């Protein structure tokens, strides 16, 4: 086969770029059915919140090591996933690049799109062996972006990353929802996801980094807008997600109302009104803390082998 072009994949930037990409790929492949906010909620992606101390735009996707961050969420919806990535300056990159070109094409041959770091995350939905190019959707433009085989993985950041998906098993809704709440708790409680660096705060700490920067006035304005609109969108996803699963446990319904209150605080938000924004963020942090307490109460009712067993993988220092 000299080429593939998967027409049914439609990636649209609304949520975090990874969730947008994931929804596009899995929906087209028939591995997930449902709206994006459900996927974002079930995979825990909606809860990821990280902020660079100067509010750089990279904050939104800097929620940790993507391999370790994305895999548990995809696993939670019962989908097999394979990824690779790393720093393109490392000597073994050339091998992994060539290997990835092969498995990306194989995935497309099987009709499954591939998530790819452009940056940000986009979806590879086609290739052409003659021109040696991949076709990629970035979710902003209806025109494809083109990446040459030779440039695969090379971009202005230090990182390359690609992820594909295999089969799927059916997981009961309660199981997925309970785990999503635990993923949320873990994100909320973990202040640094990119150790040993501490210039990016996550979860609860992300709020502090955001308000501190707004107070000092020393921040990246474009980044601030991006962080805030992504933050507001994610809170709305969480609100809708919790409304849909509220029937499972009373704590979810109550946490859902906290997120409902929270959403109202940011109607017509503007960077010009820093004081108002800081006030809203402080209230939001308190509401979210309350929601997390409810999640914790729910989590404690059931055994949690994933967290009671010390894993042999997970967070690590980048080397």
């Amino acid at each position, binding site marked *: 086969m000299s080429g593939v072009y998967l027409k049914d994949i439609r990636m649209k930037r609304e949520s975090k770029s990874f969730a947008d990409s994931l929804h596009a790929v899995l929906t087209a492949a028939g591995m997930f059915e449902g709206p994006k906010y459900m996927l974002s909620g079930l995979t825990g992606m909606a809860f990821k919140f990280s902020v660079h101390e100067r509010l750089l735009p990279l904050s939104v996707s800097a929620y940790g090591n993507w391999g*370790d961050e994305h895999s548990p969420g995809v*696993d939670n919806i*019962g*989908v*097999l996933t*394979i990824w*690779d990535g790393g*720093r393109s*300056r*490392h*000597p*073994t990159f*050339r*091998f*992994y690049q060539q*290997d990835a070109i092969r498995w990306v094409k194989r995935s497309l041959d099987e009709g499954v799109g591939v998530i790819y770091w452009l940056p940000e995350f986009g979806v590879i939905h086609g290739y052409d062996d003659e021109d040696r190019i991949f076709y990629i959707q970035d979710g902003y433009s209806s025109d494809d972006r083109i990446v040459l085989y030779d440039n695969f993985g090379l971009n202005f950041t230090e990182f390359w990353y690609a992820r594909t998906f*295999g*089969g*799927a*098993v059916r*997981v009961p809704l309660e*199981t997925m929802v309970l785990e999503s709440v635990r993923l949320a708790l873990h994100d909320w409680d973990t202040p640094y996801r990119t*150790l*040993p*660096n501490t210039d990016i705060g996550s979860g609860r700490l992300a709020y502090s980094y955001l308000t501190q920067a707004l107070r000092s006035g020393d921040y990246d304005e474009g980044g601030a807008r991006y962080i805030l609109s992504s933050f507001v969108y994610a809170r709305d996803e969480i609100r809708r997600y919790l409304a849909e699963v509220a029937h499972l446990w009373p704590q979810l319904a109550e946490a859902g109302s906290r997120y409902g209150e929270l959403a109202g605080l940011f109607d017509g938000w503007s960077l010009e009104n820093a004081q108002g924004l800081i006030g809203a963020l402080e209230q939001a942090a308190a509401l979210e803390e309350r929601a997390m307490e409810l999640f914790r109460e729910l989590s404690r009712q059931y055994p949690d*082998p*994933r967290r009671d*067993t*010390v*894993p*042999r*993988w*997970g*967070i*690590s*220092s*980048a*080397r």
Partner: protein
Amino acid sequence: MVVLEGLRMRSERRPYTDALHAVLIHRGWFRGSKAMLSGMTVTGFRFTVNRRLTAESATAYNWHSENFLAADFTGMTSSQHMGFVFQPTWPLYRELAIAEIKASIDRGAGAVFWHGEFVVAAGYDDERSVLYYSDGRDSQLRELPYERFGNNGTPYWYYQIIEGRIPMDEHAIVKESFLQAIFKWETHDLALPERGYACGRAAYDAIVTALRSGDYDRDGARETFATYAAFKRDLAEYTAGAAGVRSQAAAVTREVDEHAAQRAGAWPEVAAAAECYGEVSRLFERIAAEPGLPDAERILLFEAARQAEEQAIAALKALVRETADNRYHDIGLR
């Protein structure tokens, strides 16, 4: 049925490294000794204990990042998968695991996998649906039915396929291993809760604390000390080889000899480090050889070993100072 001829692991108390070495030697991707592999892959520099000194100590680490890096540091490319056997997706991954391990064997390379310990898959038989693996205890291959893969008495399943090796400057590999040695000495493995585990320099403190309190697992401690005695012996041999100094403990590999003269001139600091690791190794040897030693005496030996290893690291630091400085606060990040 496919069985790779001559692929056998020999268990010499180096979890993972024993298995990796068997695969690499058999496939011809590495020609050096286990000590060389321990050093170059940085696996020998890892020193982690469960605070109760249980037998899991030597395999309690982030397999995902460390075993990837072990390959990556030496120019070997690999793919690996792992998880808990109680995850709902496990049946999907088991199918993938069997397929990938078989494909690796078809390409002529064994695969490392976790079967309550790290072992080497050396063959398979589709008609009987079994893998053949070597666990290093003897020269026999054992059978593992496909559907029992991952059924190993622990919550983990894991496998790693080595795919190839790209040429790399050996001098650069050795130098990187020293940078990583400093990182391992100073840094806690983030995957492990600190209340339960200690790493690097802090592992010595944890051992001494456990021995003082008497609240530790006797059998586990014996096992743990014997394992680390093997790794410390590797470090002594590895650094001695790198310094161009002929180690008395073991024969230096041919590869080292080729560059020995060059290194001896360029790296006097490594000779200093090698001397210290030699001392660490002798102390561990004694600890491992005399399990009946009273705890009070063992504490003294561990304290001496800690001091010697601290000096070894200081010597390595002097050697790689410039690169370390360029890495600022993050010495592990290449």
